[in-house]
């Protein structure tokens, strides 16, 4: 159920990255919302119903794993986990709790946008 301007929620505690993703995703034509920690992000997933979530793992307070696990209790929204955690077991964990994609930082912006486009097209 792709719309003309799908809404993407960015959850990341790094303001520089948040700003970058918001600006560039909007430039690509998406509607972008940001959350700077897990608690806020989970609440926005529940209340705003974004078409896709970009979720950082390493955050103070509720981390990305927990946000993902909890979100899966009420939504099947695609969740792309963004993290510097490159270890295989982290990736396995992320998948096992319902993450849709797993992208490690630093990422190449073109490839991230490709993944976002593909996932939204599948919706």
């Amino acid at each position, binding site marked *: 159920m792709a719309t003309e301007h799908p809404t993407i929620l960015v959850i990341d505690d790094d303001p520089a*990255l948040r700003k970058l*993703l918001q600006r560039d995703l909007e430039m690509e034509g998406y509607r972008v919302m940001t959350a700077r920690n897990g608690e806020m992000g989970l609440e926005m997933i529940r209340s705003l119903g974004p078409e896709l979530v970009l979720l950082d793992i390493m955050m103070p307070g509720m981390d990305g794993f927990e946000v993902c696990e909890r979100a899966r209790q009420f939504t099947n929204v695609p969740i792309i986990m963004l993290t510097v955690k490159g270890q295989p077991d982290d990736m396995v964990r992320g998948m096992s709790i319902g993450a849709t994609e797993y992208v490690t930082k630093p990422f190449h912006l*073109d490839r991230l946008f490709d993944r976002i486009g593909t996932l939204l097209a599948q919706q």
Partner: protein
Amino acid sequence: MARTRRRREAAAHEKARLKDMGAFETELWELDAKCTALLEQIRDGVVIVQDSLCKYANAAAAEMMGYGAEEIIGKSFLEFAAPESKESILDRYWKRMEGEPVPTLYEASLLRKDGTSFVAEVSASIVAYEGRRADMAVLRDITERKKAEETLKASEAKYRFLTESMTGIVFTVGLDMRTTYVSPSIERVLGFTPEERLKQRPQEQLTPASYKSVAEMLQRELGKERTPGELADKLFTLEAEYYHKDGSIRVMELTCRAIYDEHEKPTGIYGLCHDITERKRAEAELRASQEYAQSLIDSSLDMIISVDQDRRIVEFNLAAEATFGYSKAEVVGKHVDILYADPLEGQQVHKAASIANGFVGEVANKRKNGEIFPSLLSASILSDSEGRPMGVMGVSREITEIKQREKTINQQNREVAALHQVLTAMTQTFNLQEILDELVHEAGGALGSSYTSVMMVDEHGNLSIDAEDFQGVPPLSVRARPLGDTRRIIDTGEPVVVDNTESAADTNPALLDMGVKSYAGVPIKNGGQTVGVLFVHSLEPNAFDDRVSLLSGFASQAAIAIENARLYEEAKTVAVLQEADRLKTELLSNVSHELRTPLASIKGYASSLLRFFDRYPDEEKIDSLQEIDQASNRLNDLVENLLQMSRLEMAGLHIDKEPVSMLSMIDQAVADMEHKATGHRFVTRCARTVPAVDADPNRVQQVIDNLLTNAVKYSPAGTEITVSCQADEEEIVVSVRDQGRGIAKENLEKVFDRFFQERPGAAEGGVGTGLGLAICKRIVEGHGGRIWVESEHGKGSNFSLTLPLRATESDGG
């Protein structure tokens, strides 16, 4: 009448008798008052009887009879006679009346008033009383005398009885040895009556051997004529065996005397014989028991020695000969002191044995060859049959072997105890040095070693003395032990024992100086490999020749403990390494995260520029470039931090000290932080002036910055961060207080540990390497100061540091 005639005759006789008797009754004499008074004084009783009635009794008579004198008077004399005497008294009276002679002195039993009787000797005489003839009786109480006479008679009867019933047989025999007389007692002794005896031939009476010896004796004793003047009473005795009528044999002792006729020719013998069978048997038994005792003494394995009252040796049995080395002949009669190591002890033993319950105890004896040996002696007094002390008898046994065994057992017990002790002590610690110290102490003690040492082989094969114990020698380490013995033990794995250093070629001179005469070394083996050597040394030769197994026991116990200690150290090292490895992994993980965060920005903005270069206006492009620039700076800081920590770890802190004004440094740091616009309120509460500290300004700046950064990082925007600075005479104290969530109590110490992060990645854009406070701690302590934190979870943290002051200088705020 016959009666009249008899009386007349009696009177005639009486006259004639009275004439003969003279003294008392020559004439009648009148008792006058004077006489009566006299009679009252005498102690014999006097009673005058006239016409059968008592006319007078004196006081003694009255007392004797138990009456008052007046009670007697007027009574018939017969009333006072005891029944058994009445007849004789009457008879005498009548006889005298008839004129028949009667004895003037007689005895009669008289009755007392109380009914008891007494025997009186009565002396009767005729007197004139009141002008008429009267009888006067003088009485004397002879009861006691009679009693004594009776007793004597009774004993005579007894004597007669004894004579008749005695075991002795009186006999006479003729020259033909036939019995010519034998007393009746033969029947009791030999069963034959005298009549039977007289009919027997001597061969029937005696056993053949006794017949022969008796015959020979008679021949010898009777064969010779007695020469005049020779003593007639020559007694001879012999023993002979007679047949009892029942067939048994009785041994008789004969005491005989020859019978001679008027021509001094022997006609036979008479004699007395006694049955001595029982005595002989007792004698035989006694002899047998004496022989038995002697054989016991001789064959006893224990030494039996007796001495007389002068302590001269009487008995000295075979065991004593064997033990002491003296022959019995050599010592009998000698003083017992020669058998004692210390004669005084011999005297004490004798004294103790002579009194009370005797002596039992250990004594030191001396052999003929002078050797001293211990023995266990039981000595007690020796008495003759009368109970008189004759000396002392001792039974003793050499206990050298027992003592030796006892000593060995005691030693073994001590050794086992020491081994147990060393094992216990050594297994209580994993500290190698403590184990080795315990080893030399216990092993040295158990083996009586003067100098005990342990040499250990290190991983490079080098030897070192790791523990030493000195007992009774100056504690001078024998560092220069030649490697010969130790190397030999290590190479062969076999113990080395040197019994005498004087005959050993290559003894360490230091040991010789110490006075070491013998020593032993055993390997401490671990899994077949010798890891060390345990040495014991003694100032006596041959001290360890039979102690190597014990020494090896200590060594093997030590090996176990040493191996345990090694394993423990290894395990500890492994644990430390594992922890370090874990921390490094964690660091790498943290570092990788922290490095990649700014890198993500750099790469993100760079790729954004590339993707949207034509679509973004210039200001967006500049913003991207600025982001890249800032992220690059963060990355640089991070790398710098890591490098610094790494340098601190590797080479220690390099401090360039100069006077530093803390107040201006704090002002600058707070101003810089405010400039970053974190949203916190900064408050400085400093003393107006504080002295300058001697410090490295760059390092101190780094610490202050770090504390401020942390305060910002871990407390929400809008809260207050207070920096304070005070000084006393010794040090300056700087504190940074925030109003953040604080630190859990259990983490207060850990926050200064390297790589520790209470909440990894806690702050937005924070450094978060876990290195900041660790670096701070090293810097502060490098300046001789302290750093600590006070915090309550949820109520903020207060980090404080001190720096020691330069004494004199101060600077104005």
